[in-house]
């Protein structure tokens, strides 16, 4: 780990002149602060309580190259790439190896004041908005990966929705990783929704090469008073991918956030969500569904901070495990002394199809207020034998009956998607994943899922 630490420190030092010269000074200050933190905290490993099960050591068995500016591509990606969640009426935005794709089709007829552009562009073009929110929430957390991202990330997606504005379409962010060689990518997104507005976003990760990739993403979302943010992420990555995904969500008064992460396939996936309920009557819902097989590791960590009274949080995370997969869930909830009338509910349910799979689950509730409703629960089980017998007794073969039960288990999560075409598409993807027929990327030339 020391070697890795040193490597990234060196990379940063090589780039730091460029960072200083080109671009937003505030961002540069943040980079230097992050470097300090990174040196102090290092990269988390299995001795770190918080990353015990993620298999970080496995990630660094490979070496990764870092390209700070990898946006160039010889072919027009729009031409040959189609996302699995296609045929939906969305505004599509591509990030190519972490950079805002220069051939992104311009999004027409956006309401006045809405900005959708690359993060790098935003930090220089709109500093008055950008500086107010960038790295405000993320810097509160001590985590080596977040520091690493703050040091090195230089682009990503920036969305600004001014007050009283609703987009007529869902935004679909497609993160494309492609090209030769093992890559490390550090993407940074910033989403700002001002008062009384709404944003619905789908994020799809796609890898088009057959290399080992190491991705550390940080997204900060600031949700203004009475605003609504819906965030749906689809993680369908090859076995060789390692993804550390961090989402910092700040909620103001009466705002609502729904986050749903569907982890269909991947090597190592770690999702960290930090939700800060900082305005009264705000409500955050976090959902996750993982379908893990082989020796995949899906690790979800959530941290919900009830800072003020009258807020609600709901968490439902489910996993289906096969072979020798491992899933972990750790849900930390803090109810601050002032946060009376808090309602916080957390559930983690797992089905293990084999005895070789491992499930780790850990609720972590710290409650400092006395008038609250909080609950947590976790289950690990097999498919219900009586239900299997019942289905089979009507002529449904054992394999099909098992699939029906697995699908039913997953379905709870899908019901939370209120974009109907997306729900249907995700339902199809889960179905084919459970049948072992997931096409991977039908568009993909590499066949990397095989």
């Amino acid at each position: 780990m020391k070697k890795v630490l040193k490597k990234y420190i060196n990379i940063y030092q090589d780039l730091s002149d460029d960072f200083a010269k080109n671009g937003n000074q505030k961002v540069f200050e943040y980079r230097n602060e992050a470097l300090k933190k990174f040196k102090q905290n290092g990269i988390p490993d299995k001795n770190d309580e918080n990353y015990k099960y993620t298999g970080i050591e496995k990630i660094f068995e490979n070496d990764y190259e870092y390209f700070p500016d990898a946006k160039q591509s010889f072919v027009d990606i729009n031409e040959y790439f189609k996302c699995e969640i296609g045929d939906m009426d969305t505004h599509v935005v591509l990030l190519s190896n972490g950079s805002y794709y220069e051939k992104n089709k311009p999004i027409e007829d956006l309401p006045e004041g809405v900005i959708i552009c690359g993060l790098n562009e935003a930090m220089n073009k709109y500093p008055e908005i950008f500086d107010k929110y960038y790295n405000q929430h993320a810097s509160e957390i001590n985590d080596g990966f977040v520091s690493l991202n703050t040091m090195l990330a230089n682009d990503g997606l920036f969305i600004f929705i001014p007050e009283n504005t609703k987009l007529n379409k869902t935004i679909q962010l497609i993160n494309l990783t492609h090209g030769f060689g093992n890559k490390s990518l550090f993407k940074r997104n910033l989403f700002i929704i001002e008062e009384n507005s709404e944003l619905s976003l789908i994020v799809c990760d796609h890898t088009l090469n057959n290399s080992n990739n190491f991705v550390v993403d940080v997204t900060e979302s600031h949700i203004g008073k009475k605003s609504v943010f819906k965030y749906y992420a689809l993680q369908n990555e090859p076995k060789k991918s390692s993804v550390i995904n961090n989402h910092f969500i700040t909620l103001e008064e009466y705002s609502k956030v729904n986050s749903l992460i569907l982890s269909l396939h991947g090597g190592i996936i770690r999702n960290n969500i930090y939700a800060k309920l900082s305005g009264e009557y705000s409500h955050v819902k976090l959902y996750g569904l993982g379908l893990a097989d082989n020796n995949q590791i899906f690790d979800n960590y959530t941290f919900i901070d009830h800072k003020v009274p009258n807020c609600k949080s709901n968490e439902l995370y489910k996993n289906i495990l096969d072979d020798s997969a491992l899933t972990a869930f750790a849900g930390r909830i803090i109810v601050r002394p002032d946060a009376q009338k808090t309602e916080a509910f957390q559930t983690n349910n797992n089905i293990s199809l084999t005895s070789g799979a491992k499930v780790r689950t850990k609720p972590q509730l710290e409650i400092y207020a006395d008038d609250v409703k909080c609950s947590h629960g976790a289950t690990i089980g097999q498919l219900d034998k009586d239900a299997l017998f019942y289905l089979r007794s009507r002529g449904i073969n054992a394999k099909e009956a098992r699939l029906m039960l697995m699908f039913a288990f997953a379905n709870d999560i899908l019901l939370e998607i209120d974009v109907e075409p997306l729900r249907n598409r995700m339902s199809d993807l889960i179905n084919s994943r459970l049948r072992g027929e997931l096409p991977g990327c039908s568009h993909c030339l590499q066949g990397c899922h095989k």
Partner: protein
Amino acid sequence: MLVIKNLHAEINGKKILKGINLEIKAGEIHAIMGPNGSGKSTLSAVLAGKEDFTVTEGEIYYMGKDISDLNVEERANEGIFLSFQYPVEIPGVSMINFMKTAVNSQRKYKDLPPMSSAEFLKYMREMQDLVGLKSDLASRSVNVGFSGGEKKRNEIFQMAMLKPKLAILDETDSGLDIDALRIVANGVNKLKTPENSVIVITHYQRLLDFIVPDIVHVLYDGRIVKTAGKELALELEAKGYNWIKEEIDN
């Protein structure tokens, strides 16, 4: 239709069926009565092929074939239907999905093409009417939030959808009020043809007023100890099981 010869079965080493002999001809309705713990539900589970039970001795011939090697779904596809005493709740599986999969599995088994959606919906509605289940049935999860009566009607609805040759009704009357009992019995009677057979497992004579058996058997301690016409059910209702127990135990 069904010939059972000297059937012995056990679960976790505990002997439950101790030599059952039974013959059911096409078109017949047989009632199997008996005190608690006599093996009635085990017999129905063994006929359906539930793997928790081990058949240690004897044979089951169905339509002239030994079915000991057939698994649960194969037996269902051959036309054996078990109406559960305790129907299982399956959250997240809708009735329509469940029935569509079941009907088309059975059609596939018979080399028939799957039913079209329109055809299926029409068929499902007709069969629902037969047992008086409401139109929202299709979208409800299997047995979840169903009342006791609805669960039993749902069993008969499934029987109507699948048109079995041999239906085993395991205490379908338990937990039903008289109106629900009548609806359920009516459904069974409407589905009755000269080709199919029914085994009615019950504690009480009550159901047999509505589904009239040709033959009544008494199961006691894993064996059929008495077989007679439908009048036997009335006698049991009046005198209880003790006189039979005494007869056997002595």
